[in-house]
């Protein structure tokens, strides 16, 4: 589904990603772990299509097509979804209206009819009860005045509503207490299906207790310095990131 090959990027002239290789197939869950400043956020932003990130080398294929050529909204319509680390507030824009507009935009792209307000309401309420969200959140402005946990749930709600093929969860665990973390993880796990791929980006191992990855990659200084299976995450939890520095300096992978 996603093929990242030798990806290099610069932000404000500074090299951040220095040759990323990553291959994600349908049905797989990949975790990308790394310390602050390793390039995790940059990778998310580049995949989502943020303009400020200049790709200097390499390529990214999504479903066999050149992802970097696609505008951000096209990527979204083609099935890429990013659950943001810091979802923005949009004052005055009704959450329900926003969700329905997004859904209909994507439905139209797929050649489906718009869903009307009544059917939508029924659909969204089911999704909300699945992740323990108060239906009152529909009538509020998008993310405005939401607590950290509510914002993250609103992201997961959008994921389950929009049914993307490739979901990127960017530090979804940050700022969540353990109960909220479990609910969010359960929402993601319900979404694990043979035709869907999920990339979990996280600093800490604890989210992976609830969302079990098939593969774990360690990002350090703009490169994936180690890949493995879920056991790698436990090793990182025990030993921290420092031991990898040496591995990286020795050119190991």
């Amino acid at each position: 589904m996603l093929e990242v090959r030798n990806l290099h990027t610069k932000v404000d002239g500074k090299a951040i990603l220095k040759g990323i290789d990553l291959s994600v197939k349908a049905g797989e869950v990949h975790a990308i772990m790394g310390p602050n400043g390793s390039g995790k956020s940059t990778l998310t932003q580049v995949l989502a299509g943020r303009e400020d990130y200049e790709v200097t080398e390499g390529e990214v294929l999504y479903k066999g097509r050149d992802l970097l050529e696609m505008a951000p909204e096209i990527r979204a319509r083609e099935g890429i979804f990013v659950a943001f680390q810091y979802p923005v507030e949009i004052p005055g824009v009704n959450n329900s209206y926003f969700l329905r507009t997004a859904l209909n935009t994507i439905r139209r792209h797929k050649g489906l009819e718009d869903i009307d307000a009544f059917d939508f309401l029924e659909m969204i309420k089911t999704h909300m009860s699945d992740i323990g969200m108060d239906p009152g959140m529909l009538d509020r402005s998008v993310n405005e005045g939401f607590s950290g946990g509510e914002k993250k749930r609103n992201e997961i709600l959008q994921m389950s509503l929009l049914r993307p093929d490739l979901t990127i969860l960017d530090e979804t665990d940050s700022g969540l207490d353990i109960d909220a973390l479990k609910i969010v993880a359960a929402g993601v796990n319900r979404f694990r299906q043979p035709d869907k791929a999920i990339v979990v980006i996280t600093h800490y191992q604890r989210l992976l207790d609830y969302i079990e990855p098939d593969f774990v990659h360690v990002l350090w200084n703009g490169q994936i310095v180690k890949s493995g299976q879920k056991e790698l995450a436990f090793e990182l939890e025990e030993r921290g990131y420092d031991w990898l520095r040496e591995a990286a300096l020795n050119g190991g992978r």
Partner: protein
Amino acid sequence: MDTINQKDTRQMSENEMIEELSNREYKYGFETTIEMDVIPKGLNEDVIRLISEKKNEPEFMLEWRLNAYRHWKTMDFPPWANLKIDPIDFQDIIYYAAPKKKEKLQSLDQVDEELLNTFDRLGIPLLEQKRLAGVAVDAVFDSVSVATTFREKLGKLGIVFCSFNEALLEHPDLVRKYLGSVVPYRDNFFATLNSAVFSDGTFVYIPKGVECPMELSSYFRINTANIGQFERTLIVAEEGSSVSYLEGCTAPMRDTNQLHAAVVELVALDNAKIKYSTIQNWYPGDKNGKGGIYNFVTKRGLCKGRNSHISWTQVETGSAITWKYPSCILRGDNSVGEFYSVALTTNYQQADTGTKMIHLGKNTSSTIISKGISAGHSNNSYRGLVRMTKGANNARNFSQCDSLLIGNQCGAHTFPYLEVENNSTSVEHEATTSKIGEDQLFYLQQRGLSMEDAVSMIVNGFCKEVFRELPMEFAVEAQKLLEIKLEGSVG
């Protein structure tokens, strides 16, 4: 006086067609071909006498006009607004142009077909079978009102809804009693000019205890080149009555500026309520700032009676220059004044708009919500005065002025003025200026919305507090209008 036959824009050359398409965001830019009665350019006492004579006005009206004109000659163009205005040659303007009437109309079916078509194209059908349900319309074309719908039905309730000129002929005492009682003819440069030369407009009278059962509206259309449109609207709501009124405006695209200087006076007596909404979409000029309407308007409401209530809602999207401050004089105790405004400027448009809330009575309260959106090279200023006079015990005001900037070359300015002469009053003012957030745009794009849809969603959210004050069907229209205006202003 001469008759001119105007150019038919439907037979355009290729270049004109391309021009038309490149300006597609203004879809009301067409011109109507119709035989017009036009007086020569220029302004003097004879012109004023001629206008008055054409309209068979009562003597008092002519005197009032001449007094205004003599006073106007002593006045100077107001220099204080945050606007760049090229000098206006008041002798280079046509002060009266009206479609030629064949004979006196017996019914709307006899209105010239070209005029009916014009208003059809503007989305304002005038014929009985096509009318907007629940909205009565007074259609003003250049200097005169050409049709007023639902007059008879409203008449059964004692409501007068007609052109200003008809009101002068049929209800001269009512007009005389209230004309100039809120905006005197000496008020300001543009209002005084209007008092001298105004040619028509709308008159509304709601009798005691009557709740007007439908929206009343005026639709102003400027058609003739070089004409200035000067209309007057006077709305009187007697004790315990209520009315909701809406005005819309458009004009053809031309590369010279045209002047529109209107006066609106509202009078609300005890327990009366007037809600006045405007969707202003005059031609704003082209992308480079050439042409467009100069919109210099004086609007003021007098809350004369106890518990009276006047509410202004405006969505200002058109005009090259907007200079307008719909205001409330809160004279009756417990009276309420409100001002809700969205002003959008794009390209080279300039707006200096806001309100005045003058608190005279006890326990009076006012609310000001202003949303300014600037894009392109435009300049958008909010200017508002809140005045608490000595007698305004326990009066309250709340003001909120928010500005949203799209791009780096536009400007937003806020000029709040406070004059408090009474310690028991409370005045709150909040102001914010923000740039449309790249993070917000990106968030919406990541959910599949195009850049333009994302901008319009954010802008509509920003304006929500104002839009919800508009009558339902116009709120939808206002949202669409903003979407169209914002096309191409981002990215």
